[in-house]
């Protein structure tokens, strides 16, 4: 699309840095989303008030809280674009849509990763999860790979829903079924990392494979599909 001959990589970096600077300046993630995620974790503890259960279901709760918080982060990521017509301006500037997708995805991934680290730490503290060193490494790999998948699908459907009336309800409808594989895979892998219910670390790797397939597929498809979905 772009005829100005600037490298796509430069645009990707510029967009990602711009989104992260916005977060740095406004601190929405730190001041609002993270406390929301934390309170969800506490509420889970109230709802599942039973010795032993929390420790066993902690991985699933971490990922559920991630998904719910992700919806908020994605909405925010596209509200800043549409608040003052910036996405229109990017389109008129002929900026490559695939590059915008990658830039916004990277920024979303960074934010999600921070959020997930915080949630895992919350699970360790609140739910009494204990991890071995191998388990810790596996947990980190799971977070990274799952986040790539979540970030890609999230940006893709976030962009589609951003242009629509009733976007608040459309985004979860489209997004949550699509990320079911990530929820399943990441939960199982995290269970193995936490050793929940007697699982061992080695049981987690096949699930990370599933997450990897998802991540590769959707980051590739998203780059191509984002433009047609978002453009008029």
């Amino acid at each position, binding site marked *: *699309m*772009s*005829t*100005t*001959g*600037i490298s796509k990589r*430069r*645009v990707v*970096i*510029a*967009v990602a*840095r*711009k989104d992260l*600077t*916005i977060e740095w*300046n*406004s601190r929405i993630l730190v001041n609002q989303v993270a406390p929301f995620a934390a309170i969800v974790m506490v509420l889970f503890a109230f709802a599942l008030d039973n010795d032993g259960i929390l420790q066993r279901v902690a991985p699933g709760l971490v990922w559920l809280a991630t998904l719910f918080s992700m919806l908020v982060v994605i909405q925010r990521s596209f509200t*800043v674009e549409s*608040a*003052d*017509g*910036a996405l*229109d*301006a*990017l*389109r*008129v*500037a*002929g*900026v490559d849509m695939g590059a915008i997708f990658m830039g916004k995805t990277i920024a979303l991934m960074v934010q999600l990763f921070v959020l997930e680290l915080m949630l895992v730490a919350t699970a360790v503290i609140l739910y009494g999860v204990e991890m071995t060193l191998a388990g810790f490494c596996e947990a980190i790999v799971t977070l990274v790979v799952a986040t790539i998948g979540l970030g890609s699908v999230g940006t893709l459907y976030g962009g589609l829903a951003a242009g629509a009336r009733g976007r608040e309800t459309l985004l979860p409808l489209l997004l949550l079924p699509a990320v079911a594989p990530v929820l399943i895979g990441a939960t199982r892998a995290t269970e193995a990392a936490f050793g929940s219910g007697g699982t061992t670390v080695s049981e987690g790797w096949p699930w990370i494979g599933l997450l990897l397939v998802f991540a590769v597929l959707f980051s590739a498809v998203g780059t191509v599909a984002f433009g047609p979905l978002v*453009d*008029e």
Partner: protein
Amino acid sequence: MDTVIELSGVVAVLGQFPALAGVDLSVQCGEIVLLQGPNGAGKTSLLRVCAGLMPIERGTGHVLGIDLATNREAIRSRVGLLGHANGLYLDLTVMQNLQFWASTVAATASEVSTAMSTMRIDGRLADVKASQLSAGQRRRCALASLIVRRAEIWLLDEPHAGLDAAGRDELDALLRSAVASGATVVLASHERDRALDLATRTVTIDGGGAA
């Protein structure tokens, strides 16, 4: 002179509403064309169509020789559009906004600082968040980011809105110098006297068409 915008019977819709209902328009290179007409006449939609932002439903149109119906994406990088919205990120500072826009079009740091001083948003203002600016200051920001675009056609929707008297003079001088260096300007403005003074030609738009 070359024809840079050539529209014939163009219909463009917003949802089901025909914002443009058969517009004919021809603009030559180097002109400053003023679009005038009442609110809701279709001036904004006409500018958005010329920018390749809004698809056309019927009719034919070429901008810079590029077909609007088949290849409007190719137009975008060569024109600059200033809409009602300023296209700023409100949580970024003036400087961060400008740097971002410069990096998407490969403008240099010196071009950015020239644009900022032209629109007089350098110095103290550079580190203020866009959300804390006045309407006029935001307009100056948007114009500065338009300058770094080095567009061949400038499409301006109410560019005078919010600017103070000095700002309006600076804008007019900016547009005249852009035209002098080979650009073309199409603007919609309710600042009638000022715009008439600036424009080389006036086109009246009403009822979604050029009257």
